[in-house]
């Protein structure tokens, strides 16, 4: 049913550290790989080796430049974006077929591919562009938080986390229960001032973004320029220097 649960037992989600992310797109690739070879319709590529290659991804990394208000040097920030598994997910309630749902047990937002008619209204309702309609399958695809990994007892324990988190070489992605204030992810969010994306949309995202740490600033005046110690050439060499300069 597309009614949102009033309460979920857990709020599983991601914490993404914008300070640490190096923008390597490793999470994008591992997500595409895992979710093409495992649960649900594969993430198709259309015209992959042709002039107009395009395809479905559940996670994409943008790059932004931010010009600080005080006029300092601009910062480049790598910005991974995927489904935020919102508590008040507008994509779920608009779904006419009951394909979109939010799980009571862990709060994960999923698509039942056997019911999706590919109308695209859920993607229209999502402010984050987290849902992409697969052109080959005609079915709405979205981040599953790797439901087929996190509970999968056939995998070694260290692999029971989303593929993007497992693969991140910088440790910029964290997975856990954001509904439990004592979880590692909740502590991290509290410590680093985790933030919601587009809070004015009222979606109450579960995924949190950790803002870049403040850059170091000089606490005193920079040292005066060093005195020039190179001497100006004189005599014949001085003349030669000037003559060559004029050529």
């Amino acid at each position, binding site marked *: 049913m597309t009614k949102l649960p009033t309460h979920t037992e857990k709020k599983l989600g991601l914490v993404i550290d914008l300070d640490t992310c190096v923008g390597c797109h490793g999470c994008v690739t591992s997500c595409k790989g895992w979710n093409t070879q495992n649960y649900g319709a594969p993430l198709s590529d259309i015209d992959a080796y042709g002039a107009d290659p395009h395809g479905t*991804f559940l996670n994409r990394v943008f790059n932004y430049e931010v010009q600080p208000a005080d006029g300092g040097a601009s910062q480049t920030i790598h910005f991974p974006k995927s489904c935020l598994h919102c508590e008040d997910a507008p994509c779920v309630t608009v779904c*006419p077929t009951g394909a979109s749902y939010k799980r009571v047990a862990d709060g994960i937002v999923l698509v039942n591919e*056997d019911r999706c008619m590919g109308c695209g209204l859920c993607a229209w309702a999502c402010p984050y562009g987290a849902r992409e309609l697969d052109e080959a399958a005609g079915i709405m695809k979205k981040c599953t938080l790797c439901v087929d990994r996190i509970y999968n007892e056939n995998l070694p324990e260290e692999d029971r986390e989303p593929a993007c988190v497992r693969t991140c070489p910088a440790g910029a992605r964290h997975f856990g229960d954001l509904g439990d204030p004592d979880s590692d992810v909740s502590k991290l969010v509290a410590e680093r001032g985790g*933030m919601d994306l587009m809070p004015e949309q009222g979606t109450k995202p579960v995924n949190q973004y950790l803002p870049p740490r403040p850059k170091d600033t000089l606490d005193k005046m920079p040292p005066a320029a060093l005195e020039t110690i190179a001497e100006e050439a004189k005599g014949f060499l001085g003349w030669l220097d000037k003559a060559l300069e004029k050529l």
Partner: protein
Amino acid sequence: MHPAPSVIIFTTISGLGFGYFMWLGLGIPDLYGWEAFAAFFVAYAFSVGGLLASTFHLANPKNAIYSFSQWQTSWLSREGVLSVIALIVFAIYAIGRIFFDTAMPLLGYLGAALAILTVFSTSMIYTQLKTVPRWNMPINPVLFLLYAISGGALLSMQPIVAAVLLIVLTALQIAGWMMGDKRLAESGSTKGTATGLNTIGQVRLFESAHTTRNYILDEMVHIVGRKHSQKLRMIAVAAIGVIPVLLLLLLPQSLIVTLIALASHVIGVFASRWLFFAEAEHVVGLYYNRG
């Protein structure tokens, strides 16, 4: 938003059909026999034709039957359910008028109410979306209803009623465009809130996440043709309202005049629906737009 022909045809034609149904349900005009058959044929052709056009928008239509299930939360589902109930009620009502020379006024009023609710649900599919600020305002359902009722008045050959409704519609449509132009700014969403980086300073896109198009860009970051929007608005205003009203009020009343007014009006509705989609900015564009 991408102005897909399927949704433009759907909202235009089905709105017209259900608007006509509303008048027929009220017994205006009071038709029986062959005349009633012709009228209901037109109403069914428009409403069902529009609903069928909407299914061309589906990427996986084999699951469309499930779309009647989620009426408790989904406006799209409600629209489907209401349209089917309205069409069934009108089938009984039409059979009475066509074959038995019997008007069942209460059934007609019920049908008229259902037709109006169907158009309202169609409008709410768009109005409910906070992500598209231009759609997310109360004047949009009013406009959808006025389009349906005034188009229906033209179809039911009521020149004076139609002229009055078209004047109100045209005025409110112009107001709607002016209000819509300010909506994205009023929504408070910016590149800064989208990325959460407004606490540091001014945010610019350095590099997009992908070099080629994708579903999100094709569907929701449509900007082609917006530069012609002012001209199209003028064409729409002339065709929806100005031309039909002048024809209806200045020329002697006749079937031909009303039909020409209707043709002009329908062309105008197509233009205005194209604008409704093409001009609508989705907030996801904030992640992509430069500047």
